[in-house]
């Protein structure tokens, strides 16, 4: 009985979440902030991973990242809505809806064409955003400080509160995703990845799988964008730029498509490498980041998640 409890996904996740929330009290403030940001990026990466399970990689997740960020930002500045949880949730839903609308346009394409077209969409959005002066054009705009159930935390604790909210919301989303991945449509996606035509002959629609996955990925990306915007307190069109999208792809490739927690670890790793190389090598941080990307792709081609999986498999066997 107790053995069963330990292996229960919900139990494990809640254990991990409460652990992280406690750790947040011990680590310095900047690290709390970096982790929050890694969670934001990880959410987008999780979206790409959802797509990757169906054999697709989007090189334009900046598109949904930007829509999510701007949704939260505009609701905050124009409609006066500052509740962080509500903003995250609305961004999730709204961006998911946008994703659902453009998904049929993209879902017909595969491989590099899918990647390119999604990239093109993000660039069109970028072109529009820098043109609209009413929302700051290329400068972007500042978000109002966020509240939680009508309470505004004092500035010393604001970062920590957002961190806790991010962990809880992301934790439950990750659990839901795990259930989705192991459900029938989630497994069909894996089959599509292997051989799309055979899946269609067997009576399932690869198109529908792609639309569904893209919608989920859009929602996740939107929530990530909103979280990033809320955490930083500022939004600009750079959210949708192709270099931002490139980072998301890197996170998901570094993580691999096998494990959900690996995505957040990969995001944290990227965030730390970038931030420390920028701090200690301000002139050559791009070189270091580039080499880090190349080396990690060469040496961990199937991602950190594959380590996790091997590790757990071995544990199971030894039992």
């Amino acid at each position, binding site marked *: 009985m107790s053995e069963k409890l*330990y*292996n229960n996904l919900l139990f*494990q996740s809640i*254990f*991990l979440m409460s*652990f992280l929330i406690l*750790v947040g009290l011990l*680590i*310095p*403030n*900047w*690290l709390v*902030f970096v982790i929050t*940001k890694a969670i934001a990026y990880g959410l987008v990466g999780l979206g790409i991973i959802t797509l990757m399970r169906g054999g697709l990689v989007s090189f334009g997740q900046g598109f949904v990242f930007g829509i999510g960020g701007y949704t939260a930002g505009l609701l905050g500045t124009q409609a006066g809505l500052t509740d962080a949880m509500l903003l995250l949730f609305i961004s999730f839903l709204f961006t998911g809806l946008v994703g659902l609308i453009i998904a049929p346009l993209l879902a017909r394409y595969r491989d590099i064409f899918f990647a390119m077209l999604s990239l093109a969409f993000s660039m069109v959005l970028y072109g529009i955003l*820098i*043109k609209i*002066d009413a929302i*700051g*054009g*290329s*400068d*972007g*705009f*500042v978000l109002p*400080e966020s509240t939680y159930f009508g309470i505004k935390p004092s*500035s010393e604790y*604001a970062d920590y509160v957002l961190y806790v909210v991010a962990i809880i919301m992301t934790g439950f989303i990750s659990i839901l995703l795990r259930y989705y991945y192991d459900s029938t449509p989630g497994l069909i996606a894996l089959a599509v990845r292997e051989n799309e035509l055979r899946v269609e002959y067997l009576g399932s629609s690869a198109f529908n799988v792609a639309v569904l996955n893209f919608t989920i990925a859009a929602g996740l990306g939107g929530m990530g964008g909103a979280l*990033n*915007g809320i955490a*930083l*307190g*500022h*939004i*600009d*069109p*750079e*959210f949708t*730029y192709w270099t931002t999208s490139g980072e998301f792809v890197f996170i998901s490739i570094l993580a691999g498509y096998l494990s959900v927690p690996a995505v957040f670890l990969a995001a944290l790793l990227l965030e*730390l490498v970038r*931030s*420390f190389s*920028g*701090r200690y090598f*301000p*002139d050559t*941080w*791009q070189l270091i980041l580039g080499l880090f990307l190349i080396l990690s792709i060469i040496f961990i081609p199937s991602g950190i998640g594959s380590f996790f999986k091997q*590790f*757990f498999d071995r*544990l199971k066997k030894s*039992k």
Partner: protein
Amino acid sequence: MNFFRQCLILTSSFLISLLTFVGISNADGHKGFKLGVVTFLSGPAAEPFGVPAWNGGKLFIKLLNEGKAPAPYNKIGFGGMKITAIPIDESGGATKQVQEFRNLVQRDKVDAVLGYVSSGDCMAIPSVADELKALTVLYDCGTPRVFEDASYKYVFRTAAHAAMDNIAIAKYLIEKGHDISSIAGINQNYAWGKDSWKDFSVSVKKLSPSSEIKNELFPKIFSGQYGTEISALMNSKAKVVHSSLWGGDLQSFILQAKPRGLFKRTQVVFSAGDHVMPGLGNKYPEGVILGARGQYGMMAPDTALNKWFYKSYMDEYGVFPAQPPYRMVQGLMGLKMAIEKAMETNGGKKPNKDEIAAAFKGLEFDSPGGLVQMRLGDGHQAIQPHAIGKTAKDKDGNITVTDIVRYKASCVNPPNGIKAVDWINAGFPGADC
């Protein structure tokens, strides 16, 4: 017990790596003054602004630490505290900069941050700075909106905003009797370019209501190809062409427009045109009216402080300093004066940020570019005197700036409490020329 063992291994490895990182970042404990310096070190704004500015800053910090600067800057470092600078690259957009700023303040625990060339960054940083209660000096960016739309406790800008550049050019054109019956502009399509053009065109309209706007071009920033724009400007036959292009864009525009005769046919004015002169040298066209965003470089005043700075920079880097190093040094000087003023009142110990902020407010200090007065935005935004000149060849055939007209700070800057745009629209009330 499997799951707990897994958790233990995972979390302990996680914690160890975290502690290593924390250890690295907190390793350097120190007694001096830790200053975060944010400026462009990569991307298109590095060569024209970021790097020369940081060169000037680096040199000045070194001289301060050695106590080699002339009075009133002859105390070692900031009030006897040696300065340790942490340079950070400004590229990557405002959102990334907010994060870098937080890292500097929370992780490196800097005593102050000096930085920001891009207006977008200057709009984004102040609210975070106040939230984190971090002393911040904006040294370069142009947008007037920072202290016009909001007010901040810990944020100061030690250089005048961009309105002055364009007002002064409009005045210069009229005083020197240039034909401004029709004007055209080519400015980058973002806040800096649009604000510059608006300030210039409205100023011209106020001073000479009959003048006509022919052509308003807003190419993309960093586009580098201006053939079409040059044709359109020449076709418009405007008497004056205004531009606030900078850096690589300005250099490319000059290189492409010169052989096509734009500078011969039209009076071109560059509102921030001096900083590409060290690079372009004699490729720079003659007869261009230009500003340097202050009395900098070839238009600097003839004072002992300026001579000292000009020569120190020239000796170190082999080129003359244009606006960027002047502006960064100006920021360092303001910060130094504020710190030392605060130390006078607190008995000579290291002042905290509230004491520095109180001392900074309304401060006046001499810089190589003239007297800087923290007058606007309730003592947080500087005004400074300005100069406009015209390029010409000297007797050796080298490009230089002549016909320099100097403007008092209060002549080309709005008084406290009035927005720059409103001041121009109202026809410069209370300008003291």
